[in-house]
C-alpha cells in the first residue's frame, strides 16, 4: 500500500486532534459594486466535507477565495487551521496556504510546465529542483488519479477531465489538511464527472481530509452523500446500510448572500423551504 493510501480503518482527520474546527467563518461579508456575501457564518470540522451549493453568482467561489486568503472580507472573521487569516499579511499567508490544497474551476494548471512539473510545483519550491524523492511522490499522486502515463505531457495535450484530475493530484501531493474544490466537475460529461467525484470521495474516505466543495450539480452532491470508497474493490460504492453510516458530508446552500440551509442530504430532502424544494426539483 502506498503512503498516500492508509487503510480505511485508520481513517482519521489529517490534522492532529484539536477541538477547533479546520475552518470557521464568522459573520463574513464582502461586496464589490454590490454586496455579495452578507455576513455568513459556518464551520468546517476536521475530517468533514461541506458541499456548497447555490445559483450562479451567489458567491460560492468567493467563499473559497476568502478561505484561502486570496481575497480579504469587508467584515467578519475567518479562521483556518486555528489561525485567523482576516488580518494576516500576504507573506504570512503563504506559509498557511501550503497546508491547504485548492482545485480551481478551470484547473489552472501552468500551461508552460509538464504534468510532472505541475504536480511537483509545490515540492520543487522547497528543494529548488526535481529530486528522485519528488519524482516518486509525483508518480504516487498521479497513480491516485490514475494518470501516471501523463507525466511528460503538457496540460494542452490533456482532455478537460484529465486536467481536473491532474489538478487534484497537484492539490493532494503535499497531503494538505484542508482541500478546497471549486466546481471540479463543471463543464464535464457525466462519466468524467463521476470519475472526479470518485476521486474526491476516495480522498475523503481514505485520508479523512477536511474539504469544502463548491458545485452546482445536485447529482454530484448526492453521490458524495450516499457513496463511500471501498478500498478492497478500489472503487466508489453506495452506502450499504441505507445511509445510516456518517459519511462526514454536509450541505450548505447560499442564496442572496446568506446561508439558507446547513445540514445533511436527508435534511435537505426533508426541507419545506420553497426555494430549496424548487432547487431540488
Amino acid at each position, binding site marked *: 500500500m502506498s503512503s498516500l493510501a492508509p487503510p480505511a480503518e485508520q481513517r482519521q482527520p489529517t490534522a492532529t486532534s484539536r477541538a477547533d474546527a479546520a475552518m470557521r467563518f464568522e459573520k463574513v461579508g464582502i461586496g464589490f459594486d454590490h454586496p455579495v456575501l452578507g455576513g455568513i457564518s459556518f464551520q468546517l470540522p476536521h475530517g468533514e466535507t461541506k458541499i456548497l451549493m447555490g445559483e450562479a453568482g451567489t458567491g460560492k467561489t468567493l467563499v473559497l*477565495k476568502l478561505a*484561502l486568503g*486570496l481575497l480579504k472580507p469587508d467584515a467578519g472573521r475567518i479562521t483556518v487551521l486555528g489561525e485567523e487569516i482576516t488580518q494576516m499579511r*500576504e*507573506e504570512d499567508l*503563504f*506559509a*498557511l*496556504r*501550503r497546508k*491547504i490544497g*485548492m482545485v*480551481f*474551476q*478551470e484547473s*489552472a*494548471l*501552468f*500551461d508552460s510546465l509538464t504534468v510532472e512539473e505541475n504536480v511537483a*510545483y*509545490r515540492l520543487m*519550491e522547497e528543494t*529548488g529542483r526535481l529530486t528522485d524523492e519528488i519524482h516518486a511522490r509525483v508518480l504516487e499522486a498521479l497513480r491516485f488519479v490514475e494518470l501516471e502515463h501523463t507525466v511528460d505531457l503538457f496540460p494542452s495535450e490533456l482532455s478537460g477531465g484529465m486536467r481536473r484530475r491532474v489538478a487534484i493530484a*497537484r492539490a493532494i501531493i503535499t497531503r494538505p489538511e484542508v482541500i478546497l474544490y471549486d466546481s471540479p466537475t463543471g463543464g464535464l460529461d457525466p462519466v468524467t464527472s463521476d470519475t472526479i467525484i470518485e476521486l474526491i470521495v476516495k480522498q475523503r474516505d481514505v485520508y479523512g481530509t477536511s474539504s469544502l466543495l463548491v458545485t452546482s450539480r445536485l447529482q454530484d452532491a448526492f453521490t458524495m452523500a450516499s457513496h463511500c470508497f471501498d478500498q478492497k474493490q478500489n472503487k466508489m460504492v453506495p452506502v450499504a446500510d441505507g445511509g445510516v453510516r456518517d459519511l462526514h458530508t454536509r450541505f450548505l446552500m447560499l442564496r442572496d448572500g446568506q446561508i439558507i440551509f446547513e445540514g445533511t442530504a436527508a435534511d435537505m430532502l426533508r426541507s419545506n423551504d420553497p426555494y430549496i424544494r424548487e432547487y431540488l426539483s
Partner: protein
Amino acid sequence: MPIFSLTEIAKEQVEAVQDYSLLAGRSLTNIFGHPRYFADTLLQADSIGVGSLPIVILTGFFTGAVLALQTSSTLQQFGSLSLTGKLVSLSMVRELGPVLTGLMVAGRNSSGMASELGSMKVTEQIDAMRAMGVDPSKKLVTPRVIASMVMLFFLAIISNLVGLTGGFVISYLLLGLDPNQYWTTAYQALRFGDVFMGLCKPVFFGFIISSIGCYYGLSAKGGTQGVGRATTQAVVAASVLILVSDFFITRLLMGIFQY
C-alpha cells in the same frame, strides 16, 4: 445617472499608482529576501538580453550611421567634418544608445511580460501560484526586474559600440574621414560624466520596462481582450515613462557633473 464619475476615475488612477508603487517596491526588496529564483532570473536574462540583441544591434548601427550622415552636411559648412566622431560618440553614449535600446526592449519585452503574466492572471494561474504558497512577486516579477536591469546595461553598451561603428562606416566610406581621426575624436570627446550617464540610464529603463510590463500583466482582467489591452498599455506606458524619466535623469546628472 452620469456617464462617468470624476471621483471614480481619480480613485482608480490613485489606486493604480499605489498598486504599481507597491509592486515596484516589492520587486526590489525581494532581492534581499528568500527564496531567490536564480534559474528564473537566468532564463529571463537570456530571453531579454540575448533575445533582444538583434534588434538592438540593428537600431544601434543605423542610428549611428544616420547620425553621421545627417550631421556631416552641417559640420561641413563650418569646416568641422573631423568632429563627426565626437558628435556621434556623445549623442550615442549619452542619449541615443540608452534611450533607443530602452524603447526597443520596451516594445519587445514589456509587451511579452504583460501578455505572459496577463494570460496567467486570466486563467487563474497566478491565483493557483498564490494558493500553493508561492509569492508571484518573488517568482515572476523580481527575476524579470533584475534580468532587465542587468541586461539593459550591457545592451546599451553594445548599442553604443555598434552605433559608433555605424557612424564610422559612413564617415569612412561616404565622407572620406580618416579612421584614426574618427575613433580618436570619438574616444577623446567622452568624459566620465558622459559614460556614467550612458550606463546609469539603461539600468533605470530596465526597471521601468520590467515593472510596468509585470504590473499591467498582473492587473489584466477581462479574458483575452483584457490581455491584449494590458499588452498595449504596457508598451505605451513603458515608452512614455522612458522618455519622461530620461529628461529628469539627464537634468539631474547634468547638475551633478556640472555641464
